[in-house]
């Protein structure tokens, strides 16, 4: 560490990192799409879809039940909110699968569609 030029160990390290990266080049290129990471992300997506569907229905029905109890409109609140819950769940699943994140609303899709159309026009 006490070699005259303070930059010397850094240069040395830079060289070693470059060599290591070159040596690992083939494997690092594939690692991001290796079986482990794709397995993990599909596992996460599967969990997310299941939870999304289930929770939306349960919470919707629960809110309907609470409204019924509060306003005495049994069984209409529960029935309507049940179907709304199913719809909301499917909407969220669709969003999760199409990669729109969890964004409520459609502006993102509209922008993406517009961008895609523009891109295609530029490309052709």
């Amino acid at each position, binding site marked *: 560490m006490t070699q005259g030029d303070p930059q010397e160990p850094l240069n040395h390290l830079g060289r070693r990192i470059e060599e290591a990266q070159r040596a690992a080049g083939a494997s690092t290129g594939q690692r991001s799409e290796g079986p482990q990471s794709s397995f993990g992300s599909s*596992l*996460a997506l599967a969990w997310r879809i299941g939870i999304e569907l289930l929770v939306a229905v349960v919470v919707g029905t629960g*809110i309907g039940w609470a409204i019924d109890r509060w306003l005495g409109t049994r069984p209409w609140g529960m029935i309507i909110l049940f179907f709304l819950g199913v*719809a*909301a769940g499917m909407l969220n699943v669709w969003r999760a699968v199409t990669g729109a*994140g*969890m964004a*409520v*609303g459609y502006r993102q899709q509209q922008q993406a569609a517009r961008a895609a159309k523009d891109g295609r026009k530029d490309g052709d």
Partner: protein
Amino acid sequence: MAIEIKPLEQFTIERLIPLHIGGLDVSYTNSALVMTIAVVLVTALVLLATRRAALVPGRWQSVAEMSYEFVADMVETNAGHGGMQYFPFVFTLFMFVLLGNSLGLIPYSFTFTSHIIVTFALAITIFIGVTIIGIARHGWHFLSLFAPSGVPAVLLVLLIPIELLSYCIRPFTLSIRLFANMLAGHTMLAIFGGFAASLPLFAILPLGIDVLIYFLELLVAVLQAYVFAILTCLYLHDALHLH
């Protein structure tokens, strides 16, 4: 010979220091103990690792810097412009959940993220916080989040309740996802552990499965912390930009 398998016993809350204030049970529990350990560990990691910050980082400094960069990158790409303002919150959240998940994998430890009340408290905090940020930024224009533009008025009657509902279930999905993952994984570990204990001759089979599940759980622990943080970023993005 009969060994009772109690896979859910590991989730029992034990009062370590009983404490009652004004009729409220605020005892210091094993759950709180692990939370304290998690907070102390994260703080120690970040403080100690960067105290003697070197240009060429050592092992611990690398860990701290990598987690910092990982979260910073996640916030920047997912929360979008202006999201970095909330980086400290997301970083704290990510590290807390990550440490909670992984500390729970140490045998005889306790997984506080396997309790719905813990994850729900985190999720509802995020939900309320994000809603307040959205309203503070955009005023009542924030409500336009629920009304997609260019939709006939007849459909709006149906769409607005659906959108509202899908917004309101966020804290539930966020908390249940983390809680259910942790609960299921740890229950599975305990069940196969119980099989190994009750089948001495064939113990190698359930034991082997347990080892494999343990690796899977390590993956799930990191993955779920990541999902929790990334969804927080996406919610923030919604509130900051109205998509």
